[in-house]
């Protein structure tokens, strides 16, 4: 089930909230667990067993670590991690690996064609972080398996992140405030995310679908750039919209997740971009891979190795195909260059050049990300950079641009902290009459946007789930 759908918004979520709020606290985790399992089973009835198994391994590990005089801690940690990684590896990467072997050794091992369990990359990372944190004694192990399972399977963040670490919510799992204040801020945040996903991401994503699937011979250079711009906005609004919805729902339930996006498109360098994009993933890799490998407090050559390992893994985490590996290494190279060579130059850049530099590289990154077929990627790149006979501009470009001009402008404005600036300005107003007018405008806007969003969900023509490969 996806959040932006009629079943979720009008049936599943209201029913769940009703029960969650009327039941006494000791039942709240239980009802959350039951609904989370239904939520997961909605699309993946069989793979639910996999999640139960995976979480059980780490839960047992935690319990073992707790015992006094338990010696083989390291060995057990390694076993737990190995189980998690092999499950992820088997279900996500086996066909990719078979393809690589087939092409390397010129053999034809048949593909397994296993469907990827939804959210496996997210929950595997959560459950591994738990084992490591318990091993490092950063957190106390959880005594109750069902409480632990509630943490892993909690539907707000189950299928598209953010990757919530156990330490972030370990206390709230046992004791948390569930009240109308949390409901209010949470629901507003959820609505923001829903509007971002349905009204912006789906809308502009459709433009990318149209352009990327048209015959490359018929695209002009400008149309190709417009398509890439559309995809860049789609992936940001889709992903950050999901995170907003997750964070909002968390708040409604009394959980405080960490932020996952911080206006990535206003970044002034690629280093800065990765501090703002999918923060829960980059900090995960930093804390559990980069730093254990020695981080940057080692010889330069080892440091370079570490950066490449982290970014190759980051790349392949996003999907089992070569373009994701290239995408990761692409960022590894840029980050290295920024770290050792470019930093002093970039610091001297005027502001507009910093933004242009960053956005251009990010867009080229999305280009690699978007095509898992290398031929298509090559063709599209050629058009973008004017290699070949495609015209610079044509009437299709003008047509697409005029159709999507308004939504692009909105997407640009909202990818900057405009909303927060306006909100802060409005907060300084103390005049009651103005406050009332602002309230009336706001309530009308929210209601109108919810009605339009509902109309999109009812029509349900284009509502993709982008994370099926994660």
């Amino acid at each position, binding site marked *: 089930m996806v959040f932006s759908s009629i079943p979720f918004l009008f049936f599943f979520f209201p029913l769940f909230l009703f029960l969650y709020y009327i039941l006494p606290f000791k039942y709240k985790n239980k009802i959350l667990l039951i609904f989370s399992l239904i939520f997961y089973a909605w699309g993946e009835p069989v793979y639910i067993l996999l999640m139960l198994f995976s979480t059980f391994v780490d839960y047992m590990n935690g319990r073992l670590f707790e015992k006094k005089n338990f010696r083989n801690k390291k060995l057990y940690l390694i076993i737990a991690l190995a189980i998690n990684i092999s499950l992820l590896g088997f279900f996500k990467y086996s066909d990719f690996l078979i393809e690589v072997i087939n092409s390397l050794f010129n053999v034809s091992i048949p593909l397994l064609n296993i469907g990827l369990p939804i959210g496996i990359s997210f929950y595997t990372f959560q459950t591994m972080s738990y084992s490591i944190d318990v091993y490092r004694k950063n957190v106390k192990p959880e005594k109750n398996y069902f409480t632990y399972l509630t943490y892993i399977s909690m539907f707000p963040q189950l299928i598209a992140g953010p990757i919530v670490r156990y330490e972030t919510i370990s206390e709230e799992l046992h004791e948390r405030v569930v009240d109308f204040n949390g409901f209010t801020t949470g629901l507003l945040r959820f609505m923001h995310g829903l509007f971002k996903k349905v009204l912006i991401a789906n809308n502009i994503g459709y433009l990318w679908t149209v352009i990327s699937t048209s015959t490359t011979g018929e695209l002009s250079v400008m149309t190709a750039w417009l398509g890439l711009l559309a995809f860049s906005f789609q992936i940001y609004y889709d992903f950050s919209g999901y995170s907003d919805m997750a964070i909002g729902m968390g708040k409604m339930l009394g959980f405080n997740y960490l932020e996952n996006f911080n206006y990535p498109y206003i970044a002034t360098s690629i280093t800065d971009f990765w501090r703002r994009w999918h923060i829960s993933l980059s900090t995960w890799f930093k804390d559990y891979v980069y730093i254990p490998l020695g981080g940057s407090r080692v010889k330069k050559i080892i440091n370079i190795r570490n950066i490449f390992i982290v970014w190759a893994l980051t790349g392949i985490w996003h999907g089992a195909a070569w373009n994701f590996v290239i995408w990761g290494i692409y960022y590894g190279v840029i980050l290295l260059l920024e770290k050792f060579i470019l930093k002093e130059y970039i610091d001297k850049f005027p502001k507009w050049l910093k933004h242009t530099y960053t956005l251009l590289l990010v867009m080229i990154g999305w280009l690699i990300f978007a095509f898992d077929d290398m031929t298509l990627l090559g063709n599209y790149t050629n058009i973008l950079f004017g290699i070949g006979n495609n015209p610079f501009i044509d009437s299709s470009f003008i047509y697409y641009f005029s159709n999507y001009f308004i939504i692009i402008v909105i997407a640009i404005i909202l990818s900057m902290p405009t909303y927060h600036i306006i909100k802060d300005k409005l907060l300084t107003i103390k005049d009651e009459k103005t406050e009332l007018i602002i309230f009336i405008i706001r309530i009308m806007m*929210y209601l109108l946007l919810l009605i339009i969003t509902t109309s999109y969900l009812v029509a349900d023509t284009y509502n993709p789930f982008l994370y099926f490969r994660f």
Partner: protein
Amino acid sequence: MRNIYNKIIVITLSLFIILFTCLFIFSDKLKFSENENRYFQPLPKLTFNNIKKGEYTTKLQNYLSDHFYARNNFMSIKTSYEKLMGKKDINGVYLGKDNYLIEKYDKPLNNDKIIESLNNFYQALNYTNMSLMLVPTSITINADKLPNYVEPYVQLDTIDYIYSNINFNTIDVSKTLKENNKNYQMFYYLDHHWTTYGAYYSYLEYAKNNLIKTIPITDFNITEVANDFNGTLYSKSNDYSRESDRIHLFLYDKYKYHVNYVYHKKETDTLYEMSYLDKKDKYAVFLDNNHPLIVITNENIKTKTEIAIIKDSYANNFIPFLVNHFKKVHVIDPRFYKLSIIDYIKENKSIKDVLFLYNINTIDKDNGIVTIN
């Protein structure tokens, strides 16, 4: 204050959601949507197998959005919003000028398959007089009504390509449709079919090619039978801001007909099923919508010749012109007729003419024509 305001907003939004959940639960569930011309998803049965395969949830999801309260109104809200945002095409339909909705035309994928299939068919029956009429759609004839800067794939290129590879007669109707579009509306505003006028002028072209003496337009009693026809493009785009179409019948009282809907055990004496005029899909007035096989007999014509017409729905308002020149017209729709068409024609020895009539848009999309052999 601000805190209270936020709470009021949140309560309002929650009430909106709960209201529509309740309306869903307590409203009547329609089985069939006239507007979308399809059956709605019924409530799926809960079985272990259904759940395991994930079918149950997909169907349940469709059930919930199909029967959502005020579904049509929501769809029209979506269209209004998209128009406001500057979109000039919605759901494969261009919002054209002068009241026209125009269906998109995508690059064809099956040209060579279609050519091969038609030529093989011709070879199997090559003693008959066979013709092919491919009709361009509104996107070509009303190209000037498209939104600015739309450059559709050129239908006439497809027609030229297919015609130049066909081993039998071909009939070009694009010129006459373009020419007469100045005086009469050749295509409906809100439906993907041609009008009776479009069919009439193409019939003249067919007659010219086959040396038939035509009936002048003045001999028909042209009757407007509907002025509130909102066709398929209206439903697809949900743009409800446009003026409805009018449907005209070209009535001709010189002959009496016998119409046999062979597989539906229905026989009548009229080419028009007037009851459809009270429903949404009013184009179905022509020959009672699509049937696998219809045999129409002209009761008092002298000629003995018979014709088979293999067709899509564009032929439905064309056939009423053809029936005035043949003893029998055998109407075969390969999308629904699942026996051998070749055998059928061979068995009916009086069939000396065969006409393929398709619009260029559906011939590529539905698989009817490639299954005729």
